C-alpha cells in the first residue's frame, strides 16, 4: 500500500482533483441550462412534447463517439471534456424539471393566481418549490452519471481518474485499474450524499416523504 502511494500517490491525487472539477463544473453549467430550459419548456408543453424526444436522442449517442467528435472539432483542451459532460448531464435535469413543474396540480396554480400572484411569482413561489423534489432527483442522476462519464476524459489525454484506468487496462495492471475505479465510486457516493443534504436543506420534511 505504501509502495503504491509512493509510486502513484501524486498521480492519483491530481487525477481525483481533475475529475472532481470536471464533474462540478459540468454539472453546474448543465444545471443552470437545464433548469432554465425546463422552465421554458413547461411554459409550452405542446412544443415540449416534440422537443424533449429530440433532445433525448443526444443521450443515445455513445459517449466515446461524442467526445471523439468534439475533440476533432474543439481540440485537446479541458473545455472539450466539460462541454461533452455538460451536454450529457443536461437531459436528466431538464426532463425532471419539466416533468416536476408540469405535474404541479392546477388547483395550486389557480389558487396562486387567485391570490394575485403574477406568472413569474407563481413559478418561483409555487411551481418550482413543488417541483423541487423531482428537480433534485434529476440532479442526482446527472451527477452520478457524470462521475462515471468523466472517465472518458482520459481517452483524449485530459486526465481525471480515467487516466489510471486506461493506463491500467493498457499495461494489464489491475492495481491501477482499481486505483482509478474505487475513488470514482467513492466520489459518486459522496456527491450523492451531498445532494441528499441539499435536498434536506431545501425541502421541508413534511413534503419529503415521497422520494420522487
Amino acid at each position, binding site marked *: 500500500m505504501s509502495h503504491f502511494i509512493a509510486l502513484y500517490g501524486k498521480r492519483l491525487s491530481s487525477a481525483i482533483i481533475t475529475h472532481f472539477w470536471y464533474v462540478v463544473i459540468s454539472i453546474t453549467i448543465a444545471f443552470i441550462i437545464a433548469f432554465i430550459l425546463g422552465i421554458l419548456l413547461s411554459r409550452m408543453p405542446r412544443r415540449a412534447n416534440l422537443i424533449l424526444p429530440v433532445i433525448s436522442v443526444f443521450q443515445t449517442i455513445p459517449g466515446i463517439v461524442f467526445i471523439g467528435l468534439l475533440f476533432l472539432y474543439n481540440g485537446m483542451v479541458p473545455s472539450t471534456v466539460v462541454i461533452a459532460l455538460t451536454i450529457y448531464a443536461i437531459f436528466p435535469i431538464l426532463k425532471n424539471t419539466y416533468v416536476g413543474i408540469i405535474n404541479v*396540480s392546477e*388547483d*395550486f396554480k*389557480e*389558487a*396562486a*393566481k*387567485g*391570490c*394575485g*400572484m*403574477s406568472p413569474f*411569482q407563481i413559478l418561483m*413561489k*409555487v411551481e418550482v*418549490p*413543488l417541483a*423541487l423534489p423531482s428537480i433534485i432527483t434529476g440532479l442526482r442522476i446527472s451527477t452520478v452519471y457524470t462521475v462515471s462519464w468523466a472517465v472518458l476524459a482520459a481517452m483524449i489525454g485530459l486526465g481525471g481518474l480515467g487516466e489510471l484506468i486506461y493506463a491500467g487496462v493498457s499495461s494489464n495492471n489491475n492495481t491501477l485499474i482499481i486505483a482509478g475505479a474505487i475513488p470514482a465510486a467513492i466520489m459518486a457516493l459522496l456527491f450523492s450524499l451531498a445532494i441528499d443534504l441539499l435536498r434536506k436543506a431545501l425541502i*421541508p420534511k*413534511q*413534503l419529503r416523504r415521497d422520494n420522487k
Partner: protein
Amino acid sequence: MIRFEHVSKRYGDSLVLDDLNLEIATGEFTVLIGPSGCGKTTTLKTINRLIEPDKGKIFIDDQDTSQIDKVKLRRSIGYVIQQIGLFPNMTVEQNISVVPKLLNYDKARCNEIVRELLALVNMPYEEYAHKYPSEMSGGQQQRIGVLRALAASPPIVLMDEPFGALDPMTRRILQDEVSKLQKKLNKTIVFVTHDMDEALNMADKIIFMNKGKIVQMAAPEEMLENPADDLIRSFMGKHSIDNESLPQTAADFMRSDIYSCYRNRGVREAIQQMARRKVDTLLVKNLDETYAGTVSIKNIRNHGKDMKTIEPLITQENAVSYVDEDAQVCFDKLLNGQDSYVVVLNHDQTIAGIVTKTSMAKSLADAVWGDSQ
C-alpha cells in the same frame, strides 16, 4: 357593490353564462346555487377575472373591472377554493401571509395579521403557525384557506364550494364561523354551493342558476315560500312548503267522522247520543239529509226538557263553510268566532264534515312533515 351587466361566456358551442345581470350589495352574503355545470364557478371567476367574459361588463363599486390590472384586482379580492387551496410547500403562517407579502407589507405586520386571524378561529399561534397543511385536518386546512383569503382585508371574498369536501359536522361549524366572521368584518361574500342547507344557513340572498341563467334571486325565506320553479323546489327538498300539495280548501282540513241526527228525533235520544259520543252538540239534518243546524246540550237543558223533539231547539248560528271554500277563510271563521267548530257543507247542502282546531293542526302538520301514517 358588484354589478354584472349582460355578461355572457361561451365555450365552443355551449353558452355557459347567458346574459347575466345581477347586483350584489356591499356587505351582503350572497350564495350562488344550482345544478352541476350551471355556471356558478364561471360566474364567480369572472369577478376576479380568472375567467374573462366574452360579452358584458362587471363593475365593482362602479369601476369596470376590465380596466383594472388583473393581478392588482385579485389582490383586493379574497378567494377560497375547495379542498387543496393551501400551498403544501408553505407553513400556515406563510400561507396566510401570501397576499400581504405580495402587497409588500413588512414582516412585523404580516406576523401581526397571522396572529390576529388565527385568534379569530381559536387556533393558537404557537401551535399552528409553523405547521404544514399536510399536518392538519381537512377542517383546519379549510379554516386557514378562509383566513388566507381575509389576510389583506379585502372588502370582497369569493368562495367556491369551500366546504364541499368536509364532513357534515365540520361543515356546519365552519359555516357558523364564516357567518360570524362575515358579520364581524362586514365583508361582501359571494359563496358557491350545491347544498341548499348551506345556502339557507348562510345567505342573505340566494341566486339560483340554471344553464347559465338566473332562475331566481331572493332572500332565503322568500325562496322557501315561493320557489320560482320545480327545479328550485326540488333543491329545497324537505325545506319547502309546497304550495301545490299544501292543503288549500276547507275540505282538506275537516274531519268527516261526525255525529248527526234527524230533526224529528226526541230530546232524550239526542241527550243519550251526546253522552255516548262525549260531545256537547249534535249536527241536525233535515229528512232529505240537508243541513238543518245544530243542537247543543246547553239549549236542551235550558229549554227543552219538556219538549218532545229537538226541532224547536235547532239553531243555525254555528259557522258554516263549503267544501271548496278557501282554507284561510274557514280558519278565520274558526279562530275569530265563538264556535268550537265550523260545519262544512257540500254544495247540495248535505253535511261533509267539520273543521275543528285539532283537525286543522293535524292537517297542517301532515303537510309539513309528511303524512303521519
